[in-house]
């Protein structure tokens, strides 16, 4: 009896503790974004001090001689648009049509994509640098976005394939009997009924592109071409005496993706349940 009470108490402490640990940092980031340096040093927990909304203006336009959050966010969005188009178009077509081929082909085909996830980024870094350098596409967020789109193909193909395998066959057969061709069946029957799964992989992609640093820090050298995840690293060095602006920058990066998650968390959880990862 005593042990079970203890166990229940330990469980409650764990649950409450981790909930606080998961939420408080976000609250702190937002609170400290409104403070100036003096207040942050005096009240590191954000309670007390004056409000300085102008920190957001500073973060948005950036430190002197460097781009700001406005530019970084735009670059992140450019990279995401390129990645999304490449990833979802190639990935959904491949994941569906491979289900129309013999099992042996499917196994080998999916095996190629599994093998693609094994290659570590550090090995690709130098070849990408050489490639984009020779194509004069360093510091181009769109080009990086295309790479992101293909690098995330394994996740998209495997998740969507897991979904398409269970797609009701009768619907597809009925559409063939109605005289639709293969592409029409895909576009007009399969895709409209797969919005949930496609939303799930798009969100996994968005979260990954939003936070990817290792490739971006090498391939986006000009400060005006950097995505938000890399740009904030520059802020870290340049806003050492203006922490409020640094926290405002962190708020601007973290809020969109957190909001997206809070609205669409069901899709993201489902994508992970189907085998999705952030990559």
């Amino acid at each position, binding site marked *: 009896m005593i042990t079970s009470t203890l166990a229940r108490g330990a469980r409650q402490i764990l*649950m409450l503790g981790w*909930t606080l640990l998961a939420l408080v940092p976000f609250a702190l980031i937002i609170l400290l974004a409104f403070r100036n340096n003096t207040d942050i040093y005096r009240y590191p927990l954000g309670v007390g001090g004056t409000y300085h909304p102008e920190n957001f203006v500073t973060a948005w336009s950036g430190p002197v001689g460097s781009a700001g959050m406005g530019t970084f966010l735009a670059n992140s969005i450019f990279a995401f648009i390129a990645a999304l188009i490449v990833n979802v178009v190639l990935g959904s077509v491949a994941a569906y049509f491979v289900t129309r081929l013999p099992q042996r082909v499917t196994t080998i085909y999916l095996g190629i994509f599994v093998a693609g996830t094994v290659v570590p980024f550090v*090995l690709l870094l130098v*070849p990408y640098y050489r490639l984009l350098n020779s194509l004069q596409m360093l510091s181009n967020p769109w080009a990086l976005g295309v790479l992101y789109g293909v690098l995330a193909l394994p996740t998209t193909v495997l998740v969507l394939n897991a979904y398409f395998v269970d797609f009701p066959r009768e619907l597809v057969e009925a559409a063939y009997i109605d005289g639709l061709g293969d*592409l029409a069946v895909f576009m007009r029957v399969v895709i409209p009924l797969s919005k949930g799964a496609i939303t799930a992989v798009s969100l996994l992609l968005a979260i990954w592109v*939003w936070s990817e*640093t290792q490739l971006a820090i090498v391939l986006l050298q000009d400060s005006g071409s950097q995505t938000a995840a890399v740009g904030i690293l520059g802020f870290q060095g340049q806003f050492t005496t203006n922490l409020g602006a640094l926290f405002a920058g962190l708020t601007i990066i973290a809020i969109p993706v957190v909001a997206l998650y809070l609205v669409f968390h069901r899709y993201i*959880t489902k994508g992970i349940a189907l085998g999705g990862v952030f990559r």
Partner: protein
Amino acid sequence: MATIHTTVKATTTTRSGAFQRRRSMTSSRIVAWCAIAPAAIALILVVGYPALDGLRLSFSSWVGLGEPEWIGFDNYVQAIGSSEMRTSLLLTMAYAVGSAVIMVALATLLAAAISGGARGSAFYRVVWFLPGVAPATAVAVFWSASFQPGTGSVNAVLGALGLGNDHAWLASQQTAIYPVIGVTVWSGAGFAFLLLLGAMEQIPVSVFEAASIDGASSARKFFSITLPLVRPVLVICLMLEIIWAANGFSVVYAMTQGGPGTATETLPLLIYKQAFSLSNYGLASAMAVISGVILIVIGLVSLRFSRSRQGASW
């Protein structure tokens, strides 16, 4: 005669029907093959070819200009012989295994805490994954500011608890890795939690009910039912988190840039430095190949481990 005629007619119809079906099957096949080709070609161009290029560079000397020059195994000899690489490899393994073990242990406890359908479990499920979706660099920048002595939030909390507010963990070679592990765990535990929760919810409720009737305590149920049944997922989770942490760049780079000195210089950071600060692109590629091979071996071994155990437990 009439009978024969009908038979012949019937046969012809069937034949032509089968022929048409086969032809449409074939054209369907062709469409499918054409549809799956672009994704595979894209993957080969963007992952396969550069990986081979990286492999070739690892056997070459290249300083960033001109054509790479083939030098055989020199880079590998240099990489394996360098104490920098060995130190970094050991550090990477300690960091990756340490983070992954803590992360998965914590995630198991969290998942077990709400898997029985505890009140508010939908809320916990959403909140506990939140650190995992925030950009790793952003959270790392936040946490490294919080770990500053005197002015950081972590130190403020410790000060309020009477534990002193002047800990400078990130500034000391001996302690810098611990906050980095802490932040890696903080941002990665949510993913492991979701995977393990999914596995725990697959366990039939009747198994737990039977155990309760037999008088098993909740701790006993956790160790004798939950853990053995989720072991395959547990092993996969551990493997994935080890590989991700060992390949991880953002958290370490944003918190310490590998410093102070080389105290937190994991392999991805060492490779980045060798390539883009010191222009030893060939050596960096050899190091990348070595680390890739080690991680693939870890992956294969643990996959094998999880599979054979899975067969035994059922």
